[in-house]
């Protein structure tokens, strides 16, 4: 099949050509081990982890912190296939993107590799979760909605992302806080922000939970009503929407993302990775990326990040157990 090969080769040649072109834009500052860095995204292309990893890749290459950064995807099982693979790696120049969803997925998938089996490097960013209702919903505020929700939890379907993910965790935590049995929450899982958005715009569900990136534009244009954001502070993307805490309920969830590395690496290698990520974090390009994506800067590294992970594990396990996703 001559043309196939030729076409494939053309593609194969074009890809490195583009990235080399990109790398030449900056100067190489840090030689040595980390000049060639790999970043694993344990999910499909196009999702949140993928976007974050590719943004970091762009910043590292643009600023010349590493000559070549390769991002690759290992899809499946909420990222637990990826973390399992990371546990078997012996490459020090390999980072794995992960986040809150993986914490839950490790329990719901009964993964043999757990977070404390790999090396925490840094928490990078967090996204704000946004709770919305359709434009012609009778509810205008979170209090209104909660009153209606508490009266008939089964008849108040709430749309969000995949089962056991950040959106459902927030729904469960909010239910606990307002005195609804989390088991009673009628959570409708959609496979992506797009599908649940369609259900909201089509007025099929009572409310929806997703990142500000997914629902923010529709709230700004008035096609959806934003009733609460999940972080301690309001989001710059939807500044008019109050926080859950402002509305009187003690719930705070950030959809954070961070980086892990292989188990059993030397302290020096770990420090090198932390150093590289810290340098990338301190660039103007990263600050611009945070701004463009509406990401919160929740940067923390090493042991501090490890402790944070342990706390999140406990909290997530508890709420997923109450929802009934973990037996």
């Amino acid at each position, binding site marked *: 099949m001559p*043309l196939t090969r030729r*076409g494939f080769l053309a*593609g194969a040649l*074009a*890809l490195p050509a*583009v990235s080399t072109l990109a790398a030449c834009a900056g100067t190489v500052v840090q030689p040595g081990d980390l000049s060639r860095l790999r970043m694993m995204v344990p999910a499909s292309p*196009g999702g949140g982890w993928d976007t974050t990893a590719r943004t970091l890749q762009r910043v590292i290459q643009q600023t010349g912190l590493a000559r070549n950064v390769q991002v690759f995807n290992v899809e499946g099982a909420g990222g637990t*296939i990826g973390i399992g693979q990371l546990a078997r790696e012996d490459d020090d120049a390999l980072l794995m993107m992960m986040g809150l969803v993986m914490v839950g997925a490790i329990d719901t998938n009964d993964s043999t590799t757990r977070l404390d089996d790999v090396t925490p490097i840094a928490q990078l960013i967090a996204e704000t979760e946004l709770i919305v209702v359709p434009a012609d919903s009778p509810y205008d505020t979170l209090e209104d909605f909660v009153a209606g929700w508490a009266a008939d939890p089964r*008849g108040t379907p709430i749309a969000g992302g995949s089962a056991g993910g950040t959106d459902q965790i927030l729904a469960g935590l909010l239910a606990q806080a307002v005195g609804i049995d989390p088991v009673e929450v009628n959570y409708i899982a959609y496979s992506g922000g797009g599908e649940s958005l369609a259900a909201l715009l089509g007025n099929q569900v009572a409310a929806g939970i997703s990142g500000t990136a997914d629902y923010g534009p*529709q709230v700004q244009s008035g096609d959806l009503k934003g009733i609460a954001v999940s972080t301690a502070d309001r989001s710059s993307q939807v500044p008019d929407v109050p926080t859950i805490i402002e509305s009187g309920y003690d719930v705070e969830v950030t959809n954070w993302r961070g980086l892990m590395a292989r188990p059993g690496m030397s302290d020096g290698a770990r420090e090198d990775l932390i150093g590289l990520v810290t340098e990338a974090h301190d660039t103007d390009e990263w600050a611009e990326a945070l701004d463009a994506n509406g990401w919160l800067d929740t940067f923390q590294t090493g042991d501090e990040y490890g402790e944070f992970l342990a706390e999140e594990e406990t909290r997530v396990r508890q709420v997923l157990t109450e929802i009934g996703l973990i037996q």
Partner: protein
Amino acid sequence: MGISDLLGGFADAITPVNLLFALLGVVLGTAVGVLPGIGPAMTVALLLPATYVLEPTSALIMFAGIYYGGMYGGSTTSILLNTPGESASIMTALEGNKMAKAGRGSAALATAAIGSFVAGTIATLLLALVAPALVQVAINVTTADYFALAVLAFVAVASVLGSSPLRGLASLCLGLYLGLVGTDVLTGQERFTLGIPQLSDGIDVVVVAVALFAVGESLYVASRLRKGSVQVIDHKGSWMTRNDLRRSWGPWLRGTAFGFPFGVMPAGGAEIPTFLSYATEKKLTKHPEEFGHGAIEGVAGPEAANNASAAGVLVPLLTLGIPTSATAAIILAAFQGYGIQPGPTLLTTEGPLVWALIASLFIGNAMLLVLNLPLVGLWVKLLRIPRPYLYAGILTFASLGSFAVNADPLDLVILMGLGLLGFAMRRFGWPVAPAVIGLILGPIAETNLRRALAISDGDLSVLVDSWFSRVVLLLALLALVGPVVLRAVRGRRATPEESAQQQEDREVQKAGNREGWGA
């Protein structure tokens, strides 16, 4: 949206640099469409870093070219090698590969290429002119409506069950079962994963299609090589005849009419319209005897449908900021990389960019036609390769494609396991298409049914709540019961001799199927 904006878009898109990127995009897209396993989504993701050295217009034009090109490329291997590169090209393989084996590969490739062009052009025109109005209708399609559409598609599957409904249904059930493997979307519980983490996301449709179609067939051919001489496929006529053209244009237009609305619907997808198109063409054709043996309508319709659907997907993306396919999601990420917030206000804030993108879709489509038609002659020469080498090549190619997705050896084990199953099905005359269709439709039907019932909190009346559902379910009922009633009426009138003749025909057909080359 209007014509003047579109002309402005053409002015922006027709610069030498942008034309070059459109060309690069369609060539890359065709290449990845041909390779099973590597889809346009992954290609665009790999090229995302390009967004920081390229102008937004150039990058988005290239991405759109990859997207359209992928839909073209998928048909080539379906037709020639019985190896669908994308799930939307599975229906193309049914008649297309039979045509290729009968020496009419060029006609099949040509009708696919021209049909894709016609459908792509009409659908892009619709995208430019009626997108905002259409999307308001599409957004109101409920989960219950999607369930109704899936039911209609199931009924349409009856048309591919083959000569023995019992074997066809068994194959369909096998597909439905394979569709259950993985994590249940609604509850997050794993089903039939045997504790293997790689199975928790289900079995990839493309892997199943490649295994059952391509691997199964390669093994079958290999098993028969020792018996008798291998016939060389004659390759008659270099192109479409006037008769082919006359039989193709109707399916092209009807395929477009199926594909575009499904693309616009947020959960429509590109597969269901190809099933419906195939079933419709089989019903409408004046040559029903050719279906199953290489009917050109069966290639023209589904190919037009999948390309029209690709254009339809851009409607919710550009007007609402809703990505409804993986590729669309990554194109959305590219927009965001430029600090452009896609969504309801995109057209007002970034009008010129959107129009240049739409204009480049027309250009890319024309390029694909120019690129693909002259290559038809080259492609069909593939079939001249001696069988052992050709099928060894297909096996390598199929394995490479499956392995490329995750670089996981287990994918190869699944591919070969299902390939053996495909071989057995081929050997004993079980049709493989219903299995693949069941695998695609099962999860769509199940998820939407359960989601609809969850939203209504268990109230079954939700399934016939909208006029859309009622009409679609009624159509499905008619399609299901109509032929049975007709047959019952006719059967009572038929003389014993006629029945005996029908029975004999069926036996002959079965024997033909068992021969493997579909007569």
